[in-house]
């Protein structure tokens, strides 16, 4: 950002402890997060708000699961796939989770490349992330189709409590929308990076901002995974 802060000139940042530094930053003028761009701080605040959205969804899920009068189906059975004659519990979801976590890896590498000012590499890694994200969504579509074929609906469920279907479709659907939006977002930013949109300023922070969103969506998945498939 290149603006020298008024406050940091007054103390010696090297000697100050982390707490002192924090206090100094927050009591300084202009910005509370030194050197953090507007876009990045806004993304952080947005993610905080979105955490509350998912937190509420999951709290609702837990409450409904406890209050419902019909037994909850056993996830290991509902989410099993039969491959080559053997029933493998949770196999699809394991692959999906693996794919999504891997995409966080490629994303992190993209951010690194961005800061090294290697736009080509950064853009390709972002596109790879987007492809992994798209794979995740398609597997989710597959899972939904399978469940729907077996008769699970948002309002009905042959395996037990209908709320299982309601919460499952609602929450994985909402998360899937986030992933889909992320794929689009990644593609747009990657295209801009490839076109040299940020060459003039040399500032590739936008890659990191996209990454923040992407990691967040992955992290949320870990919670959904734990609550739906392992509980």
């Amino acid at each position, binding site marked *: *950002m290149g*603006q*020298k802060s*008024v*406050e940091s*000139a*007054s103390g010696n940042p090297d000697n100050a402890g982390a707490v002192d530094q924090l206090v100094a930053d*927050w*009591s*300084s*003028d*202009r*910005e*509370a*997060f030194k050197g*953090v*761009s*507007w*876009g990045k*701080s*806004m*993304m952080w*605040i*947005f993610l*905080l*708000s*979105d955490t*509350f*959205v998912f*937190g*509420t*969804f999951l709290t*609702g899920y837990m*409450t*409904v699961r406890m*209050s*419902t*009068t*019909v037994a909850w189906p056993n996830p290991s059975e509902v989410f099993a796939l039969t491959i080559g004659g053997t029933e493998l519990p949770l196999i699809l979801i394991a692959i999906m989770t693996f794919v999504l976590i891997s995409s966080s890896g490629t994303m992190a590498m993209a951010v690194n490349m961005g800061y090294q000012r290697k736009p080509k590499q950064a853009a390709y890694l972002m596109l790879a992330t987007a492809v992994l994200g798209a794979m995740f969504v398609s597997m989710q579509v597959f899972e939904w189709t399978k469940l729907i074929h077996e008769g699970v609906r*948002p*309002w009905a469920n042959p395996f037990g*409590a*209908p*709320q299982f*279907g*309601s*919460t499952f479709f*609602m929450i994985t659907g909402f998360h899937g929308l986030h992933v889909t939006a992320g794929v689009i*977002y990644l593609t*747009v*930013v990657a295209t*801009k990076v490839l076109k040299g949109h*940020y060459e003039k*300023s040399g*500032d590739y*922070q*936008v890659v990191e*901002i996209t990454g923040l969103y992407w990691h967040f969506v992955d992290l949320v998945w870990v919670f959904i995974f734990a609550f739906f498939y392992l509980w």
Partner: protein
Amino acid sequence: MVEHEDEQSDDENHEPTSFLTKYVWSQDHKVIAVQYSLTAIAIGLVALVLSWLMRMQLGFPGALEFIDEDAYYQYATMHGMIMVIYLLTAIFLGGFGNYLIPLMVGARDMVFPYLNMLSYWVYLLAVIVLTASFFVPGGPTGAGWTLYPPQSILQGTPGYEWGIILMLTSLVIFIVAFTMGGLNYVTTILQARARGMTLMRMPLTVWGIFIATFMGLLAFPALFVSGVMLLLDRVIGTSFFVPEIISLGDPLAYGGGSPLLFQHLFWFFGHPEVYIVALPAFGIVSDLLSVHARKNIFGYRMMVWALLAIGVLSFIVWAHHMYVSGMDPAFGFFFAITTLIIAVPTAIKVYNWVLTLWRADIHMTVPMLFSLSFILTFVFGGLTGLFLGNVVVDVPLSDTYFVVAHFHMVMGVAPIMIVFGAIYHWYPKITGRMLHGAMGQIHFWVTFLGTYAIYFPMHYLGFVGVPRRYYSYDEIDFIPESAHDLNAAITVAALIVGAAQLLFLYNVFWSLRKGEKAPANPWKATSLEWQTPQTPPAHGNWGKELPVVHRWAYDYSVPGAEEDYLPQNMPRQPFEKSGAHDPHDDKPVTDLQESDK
């Protein structure tokens, strides 16, 4: 969020020229603020008219024949929801927040003007969807503004066909709009302040709006989620909130849901919402008092910490709205305690306002009158809140007119008083004209005395047990005759208060052309928005040079000063001894400014 223009440099401040880009598709925070406010006032007028209609039915039952039971519930629901969300939330954050934040922290605009513009248009869409529910078959929902399921989505509640669907859709859209705006306000305050503008030098108005917005970003998600779930229950037949129900002998297609869950989610949003409209009012009233009493605000730092404490605490008191809901009584104990604790920081604020007035040079301007009435009304409503916070007191009073009186005092009238005070205060900056003083005085006195005439007797009605949300009391024996007379008197007062608001609107439009020309700083105020080179401020707010801040916003009646106030951007004067007022005097911020340039 994809566009990524970082901190604006001065030369890319192209000013829009055509009428459309300047006043309609504008990205200027000042224009967006006016758009937000006018839309909020317009829909607020609808809510006002609905309150007249309700009052007519209560005071003179049957006088207006088109008001039947269903219509009454629909009016009450729409009135409550519009007032709380579409008027107060929108005008405080979208209106005043938009106008004041960049000007008061010394920025050229919000950090992402395009997003800010979108926020307004999406808000307008939410208002249109809401208004549309008046015209669909079955009319708007009559579920009460709390929209409790199961009744809100079941047959028998007016508007169950379309009204409830449109209401929920509109709320979801509103939350999207609020999020776009709110992210902008918070980021602007945190990351785009002027040189020398530390957080602890910000006017309390900015602090109040900041914390309220932040709370909104954390509280609206609960409404969003419960809205989506209720919508799914209604539209595709899930049963999140609806238990097994036998209706007229037939079981409904629902089962296994939890109505209490909705109440928890709703009030997890609903209680912070009370403070989302109160905190901006707290902030603004602090500044109005200080300016019009020519005295620094008492205990500035304490005021900031109290705002923060209220903000945090308000997330753990929500179930005081649910004492009669059948939840575990142990919860009631916990929530009663937190509710009483939150009164402590609130009381600190009231003391500090009063101490600010202590031996001050009080100018009885219209904004000052409204500020004083705010303190009175807020204390009044707050005290009855302390009563209702206790389970044993709340149980008999719950759902009576005592509650109606309480929440109208504390979150209806008090914040509205500040909306008016703020409009009288900042109108000269926004339009370049003064509002007509005599009309303002009449508006104030009728509104102030009138609202007491309306709500004071309602406490009594509550004590004798008159229930709220009733269309008619004719056949209820225990209600004494005097209560009916009282209801008629309240209605007369409500109509008079309503008429006074029309006078206010007339004043606003009349003064736009005929009002006395306003000087740049008519109230001799210190904060930055009064120091702009032009009035009204031009696009980009500050001309070529951004302001540099040297002091806090409360240097009034400083001994030795030529004028009785020192604007925030005035460098330290020779006569000022160090440590006078500025909470930052121990830090060399000011002195470094010049050398650093």
